[in-house]
């Protein structure tokens, strides 16, 4: 049986990245779009850990990943607060119904 190596991790990360982009582009619900953003961030985090383990061999990739996790959490907090605010003002969080700013 083949060992699980760098290429497998990179494939999973690339798939996550693609799914994240797809989610962002197709979802109408603001919370759904934010979930897609989380997938993209996780793809990058997985890449960092994999490259660190197989290529660089130190800890900086892991450290970077910890920072990504922390910042993803803080960004999600801000984003959800803004979503709440949008709901209060518009009574909707569907992206296609937010049209008060248009040419």
């Amino acid at each position, binding site marked *: 049986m083949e060992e699980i190596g760098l290429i497998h991790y990179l494939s999973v990360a690339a798939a996550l990245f693609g799914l994240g982009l797809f989610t962002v582009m197709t979802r109408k619900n603001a919370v759904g779009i934010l979930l897609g953003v989380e997938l993209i961030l996780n793809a990058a*985090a997985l890449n960092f850990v994999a490259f660190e383990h197989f290529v660089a061999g130190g800890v900086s990739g892991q450290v*970077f990943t910890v920072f990504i996790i922390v910042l993803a959490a803080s960004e999600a907090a801000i984003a959800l607060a803004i979503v709440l605010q949008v709901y209060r003002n518009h009574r909707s969080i569907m992206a296609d119904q937010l049209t008060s*700013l248009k040419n």
Partner: protein
Amino acid sequence: METRTFDNVASLAYFAPELGLIAAVLLLVVWDLASPARLKIAGLVVISLAALAWSGGMGAYFLAKDAGPHELFHGLLAFDRFSNLFRVIFAFVTGAIVLFSVPPRGPGVAPELRRDQGEFFTLILVLSLGMNLMAASRHLLLIYLSLELVSVMSFVLAGFKINDARSSEGALKYVIFGGVASGIMLYGMSWIFGITASMHLGECAARIAALTAQQGKVPEVVFVGTACMLAGFGYKISAAPFHMWTPDVYEGAPTPVTAFLSVGPKAAGFAVLVRFFSDALGAGSASPAVATPWPVLAGCLAMATMTIGNLSALGQENVKRMLAYSSIAHAGYMLLGFSVFSDAGVAAIAFYIVTYCFMNLGAFMVVMAVAEQSGGDETLSAFRGLGRRAPLVAAAMVVFLVSLTGLPPTAGFVGKFYLFSALLTAGGAWRWVLAIVGVVNSVISLFYYARVLRAMYLEKGERTEPVAVRPLLGATTCALAVPTLLLGVYWGPVYDFVASSLSMLR
């Protein structure tokens, strides 16, 4: 001079400007809670301005002393003339925004305008700190962290008018777009890290140079990683195709925040873009042995950005939205200088940023002064007859708009002149195409700027009584108009100073 790397303790002396900003942020939070109501806003303004004066003053002191280049915190941050020049620029911009955000006083002013000012000034100062770090980062981790620091603060500031539907909608679009852009940038960074096994830009450069020499071309992985990272940088400077958030956010956000976003983070984005390309990719090296794809990539970005920005600005009725599109176009002009990858190009960008600070901040300040007197109306109709109703402010607006168009005798003309001269000195058919597109775009921009001029001087509005502009806004507007004119006729010392500050690209 040889670059020295300092450890954490030795770095602190060179980190003093940012330490001052951090101290001021903490002080602002305490002052907001503990101060008497009557002195509150005055205190907030004084603390903020003092911290910015410290930060900018230290930057100027380092520049005068010709300190550096060093590397701080084991190579995380660069300390060189480039970062010090941007410290001065950011301190100036943030100081203008602080003056700009002082809420009106007296009877008849809506109380919500004077609410939450403590948070507002705190966020502005944190943003300024983030921009300083952006211009200095020399490590992938620091690039990401400082970019996120600036982004997250901008999201909150864009949605600061919490009961305004347009403000919160703009903030939501901003947070979604910012999140996606920084995610794509991170993914690109992970590939750069994967192929170079290092996060330090200098070590990345050495490894990429070795690989390029070995393969005879720039490795595909580096190209893909850089293209992904351009999403993050491009969104910060609002370059096409990452500009979609710009008009909505700029229209919805409070006007001081709009002015700030259109100048500060954009300049910081250019700083980090230039540093990444010259330090990590070695794009500025004198004679690259192999052809690199970067000049063509940057040139295409520049052309798309200015064309889209200018064409979209043509039909806008809302002046704030029009200025948002115009700020996209100006990012395009600056990208022209970037696409040359030479000392002259970088000097031209930096000088353009200086002139752009004056003219764009001034234009937004006039929009704010006018909107304040017309019940929040930011459309062209609020500007009708302004030439008679508020002659001084209207005259200042003429200076700013002429300068934004790039006509002599204003700072904008000189800035554009240096951008185009850097482009044509480098030579080649591709550069000529870029320059011609740039000139055509400048002509297009005259149409929409002239619409505001026509509304101010040739059209009659429903209201004819004089506009009572607040003294603080009027004085700051004039203070910005004077250098806009002055730099148009006597720019030599400023340009020399800026150009001599940028010996980074070698």
